């Protein structure tokens, strides 16, 4: 059965785009932050006259952090609201759940933060209508392992991962593989689950061992607490993490004094002189009164990326926009400039950012 290929997505002067995000439930933080970024981007675009003279209208739904709900809402967006493009969900699992719906209805969908390796390409087939604008887990894990071995001279590491989170496990696995390739050893691997607040037990365990660095591929909400509690316990080893660290909340939670010798892989750096980055940070601070997080920035780029693809599409149909997305070259976003590769993954450089007293102090382009 042919899907609604954007039949009524365009009415008069508006183009409908859908947002299917985690606004409540366990990972509401990521969904809300992404939507904040998206809204900002779309508002900017509309204020500047829209896409080819048409305004973008966001239809936003809350999938309650639930894959089944995400699927149902994807159906609603694609068969009832007939949006031209779908954005989100934020997490890989939920994004994967809607991809079949997108393919079936021939509506392109974009995620800014579905980082699991196999989201758009499982090694044999490309998910035709699914795109993402973030690098994948192995990339981050691999880069950080290299950085640890080469730049920090580390030969032994401890891993603390969020066992309930595939992102965290993905990064940890990639890190392990590369770090061992570089001749290093993983001394021990500890786990927590999202929402935990007390990490003293695993940290006490770690404290008794000898190692050079701690790899902590998790989100700022727990990472902040872990780093703080570790420093309180007298653990001084460097902490390494992924883009999940990128949030002002990390500083709030851990406190400035704890955030020394902390490095994480990220899409961009706030000390980057690039005007795209600085304008975004400035605008975001004005709008929300806070520093942006990685989710904000990625959400913002999702909005911009969608608008860019629509503007380049030969006509306003799902197929045409899909084609435009697949052919993206040199898209300039806050989170980097990239081409879309054949697997619908962006080809991006990655930064390793170092913190000193909680503020970004160094950034190094890798990869």
């Amino acid at each position, binding site marked *: 059965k042919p899907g609604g290929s954007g039949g009524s997505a365009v009415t008069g002067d508006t183009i409908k785009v859908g947002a299917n995000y985690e606004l409540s439930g366990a990972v509401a*933080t990521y969904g*809300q932050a992404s939507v904040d970024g998206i809204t900002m981007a779309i508002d900017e675009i509309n204020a500047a006259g829209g896409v080819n003279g048409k305004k973008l209208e966001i239809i936003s739904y809350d999938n309650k952090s639930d894959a089944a709900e995400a699927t149902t809402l994807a159906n609603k967006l694609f068969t009832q609201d007939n949006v031209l493009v779908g954005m989100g969900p934020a997490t890989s699992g939920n994004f994967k759940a809607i991809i079949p719906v997108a393919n079936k209805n021939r509506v392109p969908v974009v995620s800014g933060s579905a980082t699991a390796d196999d989201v758009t390409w499982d090694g044999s087939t490309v998910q035709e209508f699914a795109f993402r604008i973030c690098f994948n887990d192995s990339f981050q894990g691999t880069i950080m392992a290299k950085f640890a071995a080469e730049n920090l001279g580390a030969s032994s590491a401890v891993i603390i991962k969020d066992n309930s989170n595939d992102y965290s496990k993905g990064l940890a696995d990639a890190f392990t593989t590369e770090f061992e390739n570089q001749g290093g050893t993983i001394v021990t691997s500890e786990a927590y689950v999202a929402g935990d*607040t*007390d990490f003293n*037990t695993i940290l006490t365990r770690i*404290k008794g061992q000898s190692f050079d660095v701690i790899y902590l591929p998790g989100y700022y*909400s727990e990472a902040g607490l872990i780093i703080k509690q570790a420093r309180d316990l*007298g653990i001084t080893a460097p902490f390494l993490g992924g883009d999940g660290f990128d949030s002002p*909340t990390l500083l709030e939670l851990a406190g400035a004094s704890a955030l020394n010798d902390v490095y994480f892989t990220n899409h961009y750096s706030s000390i980057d002189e690039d005007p795209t980055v600085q304008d975004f940070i400035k605008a975001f601070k004005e709008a929300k009164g806070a520093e942006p997080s990685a989710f904000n920035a990625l959400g913002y780029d999702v909005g911009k990326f969608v608008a860019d693809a629509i503007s380049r599409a030969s006509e306003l149909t799902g197929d045409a926009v899909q084609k435009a997305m697949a052919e993206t070259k040199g898209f300039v976003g806050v989170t980097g400039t990239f081409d879309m590769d054949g697997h619908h993954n962006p080809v991006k450089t990655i930064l390793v950012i170092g913190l000193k007293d909680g503020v970004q102090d160094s950034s190094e382009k890798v990869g």
Partner: protein
Amino acid sequence: MTEFLQQLINSLSLGSIYALIALGYTMVYGIIKLINFAHGDVYMVGAYVGYACMTHLHLGFFESLIAAMIICTILGVLIERVAYRPLRNSTRIAALITAIGVSLLIEYTMMYFVGADPRAYPEMPAYLTGSFEVGGVIIRNQQVIIIGVAVVLMIALQFIVKKTKMGKAMRAVSQDPDAARLMGISVDRTISFTFAIGSALAGAAGVLVGVYYNSINPLMGIIPGLKAFVAAVFGGIGIIPGALIGGYVIGGAETLVSSIGYSLFKDGVVFAILILILIVKPTGLLGKNVKEKV
């Protein structure tokens, strides 16, 4: 050895936090047999009130603590009035569902106003954040405070329930509200009082945990609420020392499982331990195994 002692401190402070929430929980639970799922959320509100007092009103720790307790008391009594009282005579599961509704309502109303992102408590004075070392074991002042508060509150509550007139009234109401009225006890007032105390405790726990972990968010009440429920039941329904011990057992089991390297399986193993103990002691650790008189 040092590591063992350190882990012991860890487990005691973690257990105390569960106990702190479980105490208020078991109290309400013991009196009206309501699994008050909203208790964890009252605790969350307490944490936010404390946060607001400290960051926006620039109040000190104790003033903020008192403020949180007062606001939570009002909130708790209000919830009971509006949502639970109409269900007094219906089944316990119906009341449970209402409590779940109230819990969601508080969580998402809060989230609507403050967003889902965690907030951090401001810097605390040194007497709270400091730490000292005893033979290689680092003990933080907050840990001492939290353990102390939990034990003192347990004793105070036990005294209220067992020795005071109000406490007797509470127990009477829990066993037979109509008969309690025939003794001249005001059932409504007694239940309101119970909620007031329970909620004040939740408020205090919220601020203490906020200070201790430094991180609060609108959904922070769910997991501790659940664990407190488990601790309360595990210790024996409505038995106040049971809540404390239940809290310590869960805290201890979690620490034990993680500290011997099974942090991957932590929650599963902890529940397995709980189930095994319950099978041996089907009415909780301190629950008397009295068979119903036939």
